[in-house]
């Protein structure tokens, strides 16, 4: 059975993305760049109202507009429109401009209904109902131990309300696909997706054909972050329009405003928290009442308590519906919210106790926090991992020299502060995926799987594993992914792509090597057992004997093709991590500048150190945006989003990015666990660590994210009793 090599040549090194140059130079064709001959352009008409019913819809004038080839109505007469951005119709025309003009010519008579677009509007007793059955669905509290009793006995208790706004994914490439129907029996789609298989299944379902008759292609893609699993109504309608338009390809990609309005978001989170501890800083109880909104879709719950050991806790969460776009999975769904609220309360408690924030964290890790080891049934205790990570992170941020208790950070107007936060995630693999590996007589090697590269480097990682086994270079491998007709591959969610795909890839390459040895051994007048591969050579009994290419010629006319399956012991699940932030806060302007982030992350065996680090950098930058800038702003009166753009929806630019130090926690013990995904965990703790650093700098908690001048100045003013 295949095992990871003990002394790898490639695994664990830094290998640039195989498609990096093409992406950086603009040569790579993203799905939204693909324009098959005869492409029609689709544009979506969406609701301008937060809550309305379609009284009537008339497309007659639009159909007669120049260039218009087809219109599909999604929300016909009597249909409810529940948020600004809810889909009404899609027009396909010869040019995008013609389609946009035609969309404006569709006459819709709306019955505009009262709306609620913010949590406070929705929670008002007299609020209009988003859905029948009430706007607030409060779940029963999850109780562990006796929290009320324990809290009464606690030496110190802090109480606070913390809140995080709704943010959106802001994928640089918008959602969409170009679909081409062949009659009613076949569809080809070029889709910007993180799940070619799911998109194929959805398109097949809406045409009532077999998924085998659908080909979904995602050569590269420009970001999904959890929001691009399906074909969506836009993609399904593109396919329908293609069929309607005699098989001409129809391209439907959203514009930036629709991306914000309708393509998903991270729900908001507000938590009223009571946290108690004994004098020595050991947590005794937590009582938390929380709520959040996932718009019209729900899904605002998040893990709390988080990471730390609490013998007594009570947690009640309420789901608040509002007339705004529905939430979708977003990079580590729920965790950044839970982490921010937990870590803020814990830091406030440490400040009240006069305790060092690192010390209080170490003190409150569970004695045993087991996650999976290398093989089924093996376990590993995460607590010593966290302790080692905190030690390393504290050294790298300079905690011992720089940390000062709250309110003791200098006399000038600009205060420096340090903060820390811990996180955790799963990141395990699925056991039913496959990779095929083909060795051709011309020496070329091709691997195939119906997975895709959401940006984690999947293509490069699979090529590295194959090259490792076959003694070749990663650039020698044709790494074919992003095609739904290939052997079943993993959808890119939950940080599962690499741990799902690496084991079958290793198996496929190892099986192909064995078959290759069996085939060529006679030609080399030796036994297969004497053969090995290294540096592009076939070695016999430890001597380089023949080049790879020459050896492949010995295959004659027949290629070798093997399909590898998942095997236990090659990947695992369950990671921890910690991040430290150093910030400067101008106490006169409330402007926060992050100076440095230290991110320590474990994720088992790392295949490509370069793309691994990129994932952590990207996660940190995403978390920095959440900490400092992002916020979906809804207008209570008109019910629309006020910043559906990339201007007043704020995101970091180059000059907002601090020094970021990334370190893998990769001990031998970790390597033995096998591969674990890293896409999500490094984005969890950043916003929490930044907020803690801000509180440390200015001596007062800023309870509302983002750490904007407005929120920081308001917190400072309330400290001085000026609020």
């Amino acid at each position, binding site marked *: 059975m295949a095992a990871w090599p003990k002394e790898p040549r490639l695994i664990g090194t830094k290998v640039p993305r195989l498609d990096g140059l093409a992406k950086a130079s603009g040569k790579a064709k993203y799905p939204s760049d693909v324009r098959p001959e005869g492409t029609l352009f689709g544009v979506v008409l969406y609701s301008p109202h937060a809550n309305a019913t379609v009284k009537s819809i008339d497309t007659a004038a639009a159909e007669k507009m120049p260039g218009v080839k087809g219109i599909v109505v999604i929300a016909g007469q009597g249909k409810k429109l529940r948020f600004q951005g809810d889909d009404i119709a899609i027009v396909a025309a010869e040019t995008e401009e013609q389609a946009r003009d035609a969309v404006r010519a569709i006459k819709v008579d709306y019955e505009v209904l009262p709306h609620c677009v913010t949590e406070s509007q929705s929670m008002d007793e007299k609020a209009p109902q988003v859905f029948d059955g009430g706007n607030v669905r409060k779940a029963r509290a999850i109780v562990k131990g006796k929290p009320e009793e324990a809290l009464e006995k606690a030496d110190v208790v802090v109480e606070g309300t913390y809140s995080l706004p709704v943010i959106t994914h802001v994928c640089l490439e918008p959602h969409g696909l170009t679909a081409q129907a062949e009659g009613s029996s076949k569809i080809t789609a070029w889709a910007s997706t993180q799940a070619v298989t799911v998109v194929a299944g959805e398109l097949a379902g809406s045409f009532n054909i077999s998924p085998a008759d659908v080909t979904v292609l995602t050569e590269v893609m420009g970001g999904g972050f959890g929001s691009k699993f399906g074909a969506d109504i836009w993609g399904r309608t593109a396919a329908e329009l293609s069929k309607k338009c005699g098989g001409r390809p129809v391209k439907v990609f959203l514009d930036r405003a629709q991306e914000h309005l309708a393509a998903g978001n991270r729900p908001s989170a507000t938590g009223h928290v009571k946290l108690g501890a004994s004098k020595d800083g050991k947590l005794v109880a937590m009582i938390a009442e929380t709520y959040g909104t996932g718009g019209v879709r729900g899904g605002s719950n998040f893990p709390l308590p988080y990471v730390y050991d609490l013998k007594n806790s009570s947690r009640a969460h309420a789901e608040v519906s509002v007339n705004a776009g529905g939430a979708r999975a977003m990079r580590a769904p729920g965790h950044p919210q839970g982490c921010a609220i937990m870590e803020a309360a814990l830091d406030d408690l440490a400040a009240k106790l006069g305790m060092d924030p690192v010390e209080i964290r170490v003190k409150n890790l569970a004695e045993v926090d087991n996650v999976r080891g290398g093989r089924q049934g093996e376990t590993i205790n995460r607590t010593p991992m966290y302790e080692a990570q905190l030690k390393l992170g504290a050294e790298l941020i300079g905690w011992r020299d720089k940390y000062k208790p709250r309110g003791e950070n200098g006399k000038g107007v600009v205060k420096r502060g340090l903060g820390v936060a811990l996180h955790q995630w799963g990141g395990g693999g699925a056991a039913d995926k496959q990779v095929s590996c083909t060795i051709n007589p011309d020496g070329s090697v091709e691997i195939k799987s119906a997975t895709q590269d959401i940006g984690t480097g999947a293509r490069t990682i699979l090529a590295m594993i194959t090259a490792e086994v076959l003694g070749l270079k990663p650039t020698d491998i044709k790494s074919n992914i992003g095609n739904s007709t290939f052997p079943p591959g993993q959808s890119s969610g939950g940080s599962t792509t690499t741990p799902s795909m690496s084991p079958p890839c290793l198996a496929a390459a190892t099986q192909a090597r064995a078959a290759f040895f069996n085939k060529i051994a006679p030609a080399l007048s030796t036994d297969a057992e004497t053969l090995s591969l290294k540096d592009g050579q076939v070695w016999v009994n430890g001597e380089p004997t023949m080049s790879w290419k020459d050896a492949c010629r010995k295959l004659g006319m027949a290629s070798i093709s093997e399909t590898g399956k998942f095997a236990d012991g090659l990947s695992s699940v369950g990671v921890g991590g910690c991040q430290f932030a150093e910030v400067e806060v101008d106490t006169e302007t409330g402007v926060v500048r992050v100076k440095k982030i230290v991110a320590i992350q474990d994720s088992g065996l790392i295949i490509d150190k370069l793309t691994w680090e990129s994932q952590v950098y990207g996660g940190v930058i995403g978390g920095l945006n959440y900490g400092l800038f992002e916020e979906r702003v809804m207008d209570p009166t008109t019910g629309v989003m006020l910043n559906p753009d990339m201007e007043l929806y704020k995101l*970091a630019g180059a000059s907002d990015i601090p020094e970021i130090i990334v370190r893998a926690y990769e001990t031998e013990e970790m390597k033995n666990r096998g591969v674990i995904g890293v896409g999500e965990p490094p984005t969890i703790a950043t916003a929490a660590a930044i907020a803690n650093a801000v509180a440390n700098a200015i001596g007062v908690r800023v309870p509302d994210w983002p750490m904007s001048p407005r929120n920081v100045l308001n917190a400072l003013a309330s400290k001085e009793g000026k609020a």
Partner: protein
Amino acid sequence: MKAFDYAAPTSVADALKLMEPPHTAALSGGTDLINRMKDYVSSPERVVYLKDIDALESIESSSKGVSIGAGATLAALLEHGEIKKTYPSLWKAAYEVATPQIRNMATVGGNLLQRPRCWYYRAGNGLLALKDGKSLVREGDNRFHAIFMTDGDALFVNPSSLAVPLIALGAKATILGPKGERTVPVAELYRVPKGSQERELTVQHGEILTKVVVPATHAKNASYEARHKQAHDWPLALASVALEMDGQKVGSARVVLGAVAPVPLRSEAAEKAIEGKALNHESATAAGDAAVKDAKPLSMNAYKVQLTKVAVKRALLAAVGDRYWEEG
């Protein structure tokens, strides 16, 4: 966007003729108008592109001051040695506009005559954003809106960063129209609209802003901008000062505020507070306090009062080389 006629004249005379019909818009760097057209906030029937007119681009300095063509890009302004040396308030304000890419396209005239960035206006609710007689701004999310002159209906803020130092420096704008040329102080390019039909700009239909002339000066001058992001962002408050010194004391002062009122706002209270005083932390703080005496913030923007105070204080101290906030 709505289809439109397009013309790209190479002389001012041709441009004036082309600008004559109603519903015509002048296009320069395109960083404002194009977005408004895409969002159907503005739908001109004709667009006259002014960037092919070389005569509008020049920046010339003489003993009388510096003349800046309306078509000069912000990048060109920043590269001009005399501007950086004599008018650091203008240089700094220009430097903090948007991004290098936008500064390569955006022009001085376009910066002065861009329309407000109020998100209610940009969402198609009209300049004053009144609905059923009520102000959407007053009732809604006004975190970026005015803190001065808020008794009226115009609650947007003037978006021009360059107008603020130009007014402090006493610059004049030259406007060419069918009836000939007129020259006005930069402050008079703006007004507070009285009703929904009035624009906030005084430039009339068919007129073209051709240049601004900044007089020669020995005044110590500086700008300070408070903003959320370091990269590409709008000022939350901006102050420019120009100080004629009388020995160690401030003889006469000009203090102008940006991003806090529907027009760039001269603060006579701040000027009075600093005139006759030596410039130090105490007097600068007092001038900052005086500047916001008449501020009446809306429901969500009281923090801008603090930012305005600090912007005035820091601009004053920066004018005499004290950048205390950078010392950490």
